[in-house]
C-alpha cells in the first residue's frame, strides 16, 4: 500500500472515532446535567479538559458557559478537535484515498460530513438539544464501522483503518476515565454517595459499556469500573482490548510475530501492551489513576510518531528496519 494512502486511511479513521467519542461523552454529560441540576457550568468544563484543548477554550470563551462547551466541542471550526473539524479532516483524508476504500465507505463519510456541516450552520439547535445531533454522529460512526467489518477486504487498508480507530479509542477511553478525576464532588463526604454513583455510571455510559459492566460486575463499584474501562479483556472499548487488538493489526501489517519487533512502532506498542497486560488495578491505583493515564497518553503519542516514521514518512519502511 502507498505510504500516503496508509497515512490517510489511518487518520480518516482516527478523526471519525474522535467525532464519535466527543458525541458520546457530550451526550452522557447532557443527561447527567438533567439528572443532577447544577449551579454553574462546572459539570461541563471537564469535557474540554479531557480533549486536551482547555487552553484554546479558555482563550476563546472567558465565560465558560455550558453552551460554550457544547458549541466548542461540536460546531466550532476554530477548535481542531470539534466534531465539525474532525469530520472535515476525516472527509479530506477519505477523499484522497477514495480509490482504496469501499465506495460505500466513502459515500458514508461524505454524507456524514454534509450532515454535520449543514447542521453546524445553525448550532443553536445542537446546543438546545444536543442529544439528537450526538445520536446521529454515533449511529453514523457505527455504520462506518459496520462497512469496515462487513465489506472491506482484510487487507492493509483495513488494518490501518482498525489501527487508527483502536488507538484513538484507547486514548479517548483513558481520557474519559480521567474525566472522573476532574469531576469535582462538592465535598469529600459525597464520595460513594448518589452523585458519585451517578458519575461513575455516566463514565460507563459514555463508552457504551454500562450494560456490559452490569453483566460482568453488577454493582457500581468505582474500582471495578476503572478496572473494566482499563483492563477488561472482552469489552471492545477498554484500553487493554483496544491496544492488544491494535498490536495484532500492527503485526499483521508487517508479518512480524507478536513478541518480536521489526520497527520502532512494534517496539513501542509491545512495551505498552506488556505493561498493561501484566498490571493489576491495585497497582494502577497505587501509581495514581491520573498519573497512570498521563503516562499512557504520553506513550501513545510516542507510538503514533513511531507509526508515522515506520509507515507513512515517504522513506521506505524496509530500509529502516534493516538498519536496526
Amino acid at each position, binding site marked *: 500500500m502507498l505510504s500516503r494512502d496508509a497515512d490517510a486511511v489511518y487518520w480518516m479513521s482516527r478523526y471519525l472515532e474522535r467525532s464519535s467519542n466527543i458525541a458520546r461523552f457530550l451526550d452522557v454529560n447532557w443527561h447527567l446535567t438533567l439528572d443532577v441540576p447544577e449551579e454553574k457550568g462546572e459539570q461541563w468544563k471537564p469535557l474540554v479538559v479531557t480533549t486536551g484543548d482547555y487552553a484554546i477554550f479558555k482563550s476563546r470563551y472567558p465565560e465558560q458557559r455550558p453552551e460554550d462547551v457544547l458549541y466548542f466541542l461540536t460546531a466550532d471550526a476554530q477548535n481542531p478537535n470539534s466534531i465539525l473539524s474532525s469530520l472535515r479532516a476525516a472527509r*479530506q483524508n477519505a477523499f484522497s484515498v477514495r*480509490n482504496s476504500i469501499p465506495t460505500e465507505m466513502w*459515500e458514508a463519510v461524505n454524507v456524514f460530513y454534509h450532515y454535520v456541516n449543514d447542521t453546524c450552520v445553525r448550532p443553536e439547535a445542537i446546543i438546545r438539544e444536543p442529544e439528537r445531533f450526538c445520536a446521529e454522529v454515533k449511529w453514523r460512526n457505527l455504520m462506518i464501522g459496520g462497512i469496515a467489518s462487513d465489506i472491506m477486504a482484510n487487507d492493509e487498508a483495513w488494518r490501518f483503518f482498525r489501527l487508527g480507530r483502536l488507538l484513538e479509542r484507547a486514548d479517548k477511553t483513558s481520557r474519559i476515565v480521567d474525566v472522573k478525576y476532574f469531576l469535582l464532588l462538592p465535598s469529600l463526604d459525597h464520595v460513594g454517595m448518589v452523585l458519585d454513583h451517578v458519575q461513575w455510571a455516566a463514565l460507563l455510559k459514555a463508552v457504551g459499556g454500562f450494560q456490559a459492566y452490569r453483566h460482568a460486575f453488577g454493582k457500581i463499584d468505582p474500582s471495578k469500573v476503572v478496572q473494566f474501562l482499563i483492563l477488561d479483556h472482552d469489552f471492545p472499548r477498554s484500553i487493554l482490548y483496544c491496544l492488544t487488538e491494535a498490536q495484532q493489526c500492527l503485526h499483521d501489517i508487517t508479518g512480524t510475530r507478536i513478541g518480536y519487533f521489526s520497527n520502532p512502532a512494534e517496539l513501542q506498542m509491545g512495551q505498552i501492551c506488556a505493561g498493561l497486560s501484566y498490571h493489576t488495578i491495585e497497582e494502577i491505583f497505587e501509581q495514581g489513576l491520573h498519573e497512570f493515564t498521563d503516562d499512557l497518553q504520553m506513550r501513545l503519542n510516542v507510538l503514533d510518531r513511531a507509526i508515522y516514521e515506520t509507515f507513512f514518512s*515517504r522513506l*521506505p*519502511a*524496509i530500509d529502516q528496519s534493516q538498519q536496526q
Partner: protein
Amino acid sequence: MNFDGYEIGPFYDEMFEASGVARPGTRLLLDKLRSLPANELLTRQAAAEKIFFDLGITFSVYGHEQGAEKIFPFDIVPRVIEAEEWNHLERGLKQRIQALNLFLDDIYHDQKILRNNVVPRDIIESSAGYFPVCRGLNPPLGVWCHITGTDLVRDANGEFHVLEDNLRSPSGVSYVLANRQILKRTFPQVFSASNVRSVDTYPSQLLDMLHSIAPSRQTRPSVALLTPGVHNSAYFEHSFLSQQTGIELVEGADLVVHEGYVHMRTTRGLIKVDVVYRRIGEDFLDPRVFREDSLLGVPGIMDVYRQGRVALANAPGTGVADDKAVYAYVPEIIKYYLGEDPIIPNIPTYICRDPRQMAHVLANLDSLVVKAANESGGYGMLIGPASTKADQEAFASKIRQDPRNYIAQPTVSLSRCPVIVGDHFEGRHVDLRPYVLYGNEIQVIPGGLTRVALTKGSLVVNSSQGGGSKDTWVLGR
C-alpha cells in the same frame, strides 16, 4: 411532463425527426417518458442528482472545504445513437487514430510527411505540443496515443464532423460510466428493452491496454495512475479509474527513480512500476527534461522511459497532433499514411498562418468561431455571432500578433437534444466525445460523453464553461 410545446427549431434534433415525430431509436424512450405521471420525471432527476451528491461527484463553488458544493449538471434524458450511425463513427474514429499515431511516430522519427511537404514544417516546429526531446523515442508497440477523446458534432443536416482531437490526457470517461450507472437506476425497464450497448467494460479494456504496453513480459505488471492531486478538477476521474481498475493512484512524490527503474513508496518499501498512466501534462512529467519548476512529476522518469524500462500512456509529445493548426491537415494526414479518404470529415478550417486565409478570417469575424491553436477547455475562443464589436477587435489584434496560433471555422449549428428546464423540455446544443483505446488493437467504447450547453442558445459545452452532460445510448441493433 410532455413534449407538447417542444420546438425543434432550425436544428438537427437528436430525438425528433420532425415536430412530434420520434426518430426510430428514440420511440421506446419517448413512450416511457410520456407514460410517466406528472412530476415523476422531476422526482427521478432529483434522485439522480442526490446520488451524484452523496457520491461526492461534485466541485466546490467558491474555494474549497467551507464553500458550497455542486454536482456537475446532468440531464437524465439520454441521447440515443442508432446502430448504423455508430458503426460508421467507429470506423471513422479507428481510421483517424491509426493515422494520427503513424503521424506522431513519423514526426518524432524520419519526418517524411514534412519532407514531402504534406504538412508545413514550421507548423510542427512552432507547436507548443511538439517536444524535440521526444525525437527518436520508441514507445511500446509503436503506439504513441493510447487513450483518445475525440470531439464530434453534428451539423444541421445530421452529419457528424470531428471538431477536435484530444490526444494528451482527455478527461470525462468517468462521467460516461457514472452517468450510465445512474441512468440504469433511473430508467431500468426502458434501458433493458432498448438494447443499449454496454460501456461498463471500459475499465477492463483500459487495464488490458495498460498491461499490453508493459516493457517486461510479466503476468501482472504494476501500473500506476499519476495524478496532479486532490485539487485537480479531474481528480474524481483519476480516483474513479484507479478504483475501477485496481491500479495505484499516485502523485509525483509517491514515485521515485531508483537503480534505473521507477518505484513507488509503499508501507513495505519501494515497489517497481512498469506502466504509468499519466494524467499530468508532459511538461510537468520530469523537471530534469521539461519544466524545471515542476513539482508534480518525477525527476529522472524520462531517462527510464528512454531506456524502455517504464511505459508511459500517453507517450510524451502527443500534443503536437491535437494542435488546432495541425487539425486542419488531418484529412491529408489520413490520405498520406493510409491512402484513404477520411470517413468522418473535419469542420472546414481557416489557418491564420496563411495570409490569404487570415484576411478572410479578419473580414468575417462576426460569423466565424476563432480558436487558439493550443488552448483547450473552451478557453481562448471567439464565437463570432455571439460576440461584440469590441471582442472582435481584441481578437483581430491577437490574430495579427500571432497568426500561427489561430484558426477559424464556420459556426456549426450543433444538433440539439431535449433537456429538462424547470417543468418542461427545451432544446439545447450538444456534442459527443467518444473514447478510443489503442494497445494491441484499437477499441472504441460504444457511447461517450454527450456534453450539453445548458445556457439557451449557447454553443459552448465545456464543463469548465458551465456545460452539463447526458448519458449516451448506442443501440445494439
